[in-house]
């Protein structure tokens, strides 16, 4: 014999067997109704206080993202770091080691090459080539 609880529940439960499209339509209608109720509840209960701040960019000001395109320097360093890794590595390992001696060696070697090129160009100019 069914208990009172079962009798009450059996009397309440309602199963509606419909076509899939109708099921989707009814369920969407229910969702719209619930949305309306929830929105009413939410907007009547929520606090009205709000504060406007700058976008949080790890401490940077907003103008770091204000340009339409990245700056030339950013593009250059982006290219060097992403696509010319070996060149960037060479610069870091040979020039920017933190030792003034390394920097002097690197610069003087290039400087010597430039002087050599200048001397060759001068000689060639004198001989009329």
């Amino acid at each position, binding site marked *: 014999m069914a208990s009172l*609880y*079962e009798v009450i*529940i*059996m009397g*309440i*439960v*309602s*199963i*509606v*067997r*419909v*076509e*899939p499209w*109708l*099921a*989707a339509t*009814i*369920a*969407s209608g*229910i*969702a*719209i*109704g*619930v*949305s309306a*109720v*929830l*929105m009413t509840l*939410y907007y009547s*209960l*929520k*606090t009205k*206080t*709000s*504060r*406007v*701040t*700058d*976008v*949080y*960019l*790890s401490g940077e000001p907003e103008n770091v993202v204000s340009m339409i395109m990245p700056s030339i320097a950013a593009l250059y360093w982006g290219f060097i770091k992403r696509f010319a890794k070996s060149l960037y590595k060479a610069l870091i390992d040979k020039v920017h080691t933190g030792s003034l001696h390394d920097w002097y060696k690197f610069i003087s070697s290039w400087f010597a090459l430039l002087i050599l090129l200048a001397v060759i160009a001068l000689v060639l100019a004198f001989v009329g080539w």
Partner: protein
Amino acid sequence: MFVEQIVVALISVFVFPGLIFTAALAFFTQYLIRKLSARFQRRMGPSYVGPFGVLQPFYDFLKLLRAKELVRTRFSMVRVAEVSLVIGIAFLIAALTFLPISIFRLQSELDVFVFFYMASVIPFIVKVIASIAMPGPYTSIGVSRMLSMATITEPAFFASIVIPVYLASKQGNVPFMSLSSYANVAKLWTNPVTAIVLLLNLIAYMVSLQAKAMYQPFNIPEAEQEIIAGFETEFSGPLLALAKLFHDIEVSVSLLLGVYVFLGGPLPFNHLSVEGVAIMIIKYLALVTIITFIKNIMGRYRIDQALLQVFKYSLVPAIIGAIVAMIV
């Protein structure tokens, strides 16, 4: 008769198992996860609000909704975010009408597909819309990670649910691929071949649910500390309350789905018996305990690792399950 059905539908949608019950279940689920996680980490967890701290999630929600201010930038579209999240919650609640727990139940062929759209696809889309309506650099990273994860998580979750429903509905008495087929799940577990399919899909379901809920090890879209709070970094005050409620309801509805599809709901009893209700609660708690256990024993995967792991442990078992299901 029609008026009676309307009244039952209204009670079902707004009281049980609708808005009020689902919100209460979501808060309780959040409490359980927080309390169990605290015990894993030798902390007390929520303890002071209500008996054993059970009302803490509700109190947190109220505090965010009523007391905390909403912080926004000049690029924020607060109304869009709020309306999106409300629609997401409404669709999750409306989807419950397809589950056998509902006192006003919609039943049709292929209703599992409608359920999936309402309880998984639409909530995901509104979550993305709400996040990008409150833009910020960390939000962008979080949303891009969330979208990457969804490419594997959603198909895996879908497959893990559809295959057991397909097998159960083949046993008869219910419309084809209807969620009402839960009553035949016991037969599937007693058959060795279908039991393997069910087990594979249960694994796929648990892994994809972990990823959908963004719990460790798949919490890369919110990656606390690394990208602040990822997709929800810019949510605050009442909007954060709404987002948290939305998340908890999504987890609760997904768990209820698992209770029916894999564990047979109140079986071997029925919904109307005290034993049936008790066994459903036990099954639900078991699933909550499993996801909390995984959440607490795992670290966070990187996005590439997370995608690979969801693929390996969720999509592949689901595909194998689908192939075996087609053969039998």
